């Protein structure tokens, strides 16, 4: 998949998610979803070219063609409106690093559940 492909290249180049998103002016939250295969990759060829450049992929190479093919296949990914309970649960934490160093309130827990369910 496109996300695995890019993530592997990025990590092999020693570029963190943060740095990658800074270089390409990407929203790191969305890009993380693309790498995890829960959001469609970009389809704009210019953007794909910029990504290839950062990853050291030469245009017209076999890797470039693979990148474009995978982006095209990934265009069909439609994020669900609401995540299933199981998927939501997998994303929830057991412990939290909070600013006030206290357990979250029930209201904060509800907000977190809803945020994750909506795939934010």
């Amino acid at each position, binding site marked *: 998949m496109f996300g695995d492909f890019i993530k592997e290249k990025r990590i092999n180049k020693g570029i*963190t*998610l*943060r740095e990658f998103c800074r270089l390409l002016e990407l929203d*790191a*939250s969305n890009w993380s979803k693309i790498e995890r295969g829960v959001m469609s990759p970009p389809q704009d060829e210019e953007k794909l070219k910029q990504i290839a450049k950062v990853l050291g992929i030469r245009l017209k190479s076999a890797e470039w063609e693979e990148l474009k093919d995978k982006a095209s296949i990934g265009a069909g990914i439609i994020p669900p409106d609401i995540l299933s309970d199981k998927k939501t649960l997998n994303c929830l934490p*057991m*412990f939290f690093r909070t600013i*006030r160093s*206290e357990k979250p309130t029930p209201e904060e827990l509800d907000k977190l559940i809803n*945020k994750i369910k909506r795939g934010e």
Partner: protein
Amino acid sequence: MNQGDFKCQWIDKEELWERADKFRSEYWPEQSLPVDIEQIVEFRLKLDIVPMHNLQSDNDMEACLKMDLSGIVVDYDRYMNTKYANRMRFSFAHEIGHFILHKHIYNNYKRQIITPEEWKNFIVDMSDTEYRDFEWQANEFAGRLLVPSDKLGVAIGEAYGALKADKNLIAYLNKDPDAVLSRVSPQLCRIFGVSESVIERRVEREKLWPPKANLSV
């Protein structure tokens, strides 16, 4: 699910420190400072970093380890804004602490909690003291991971060497060591990439301040 079984197992500080040192040796053999915690998370532990908008403003959270242990969720602004870099580094190290020290807890309970509502009740019912114990252990692990004791000793020795040039400061060091520490801690923070509160905590826990006259310079 039996909440009564949810206990934080006591771990002596020496064992916590040893586990943090061992982890650092294994995952950061370069030994350079600051420890590049993001590289460890992404490249070596192969954990996803999952930035989430408004995690801090809506939920008062900076970071948390996902229940399936596949990644660390972080507040988007804290993660992207270099102003919070030191605090974020500590948050990653803290979550690694949970990953290393409390993995068995995640594995035990994720089988028993089936729905988000059950998860919420589990967190709400969790004893505050148990919660604090888990957090304390993760903090202690994180501090020791980012601030290796031997290198802190050397850095303090160097800071003391600079202090010795000023007789007034040496007099203050005897009268009010904390005040003098606050003067030198910014330079220590830069070396280790942590906040002043982390440095102050480490020197207190490791009994490195005030420096002894025989520290290496």
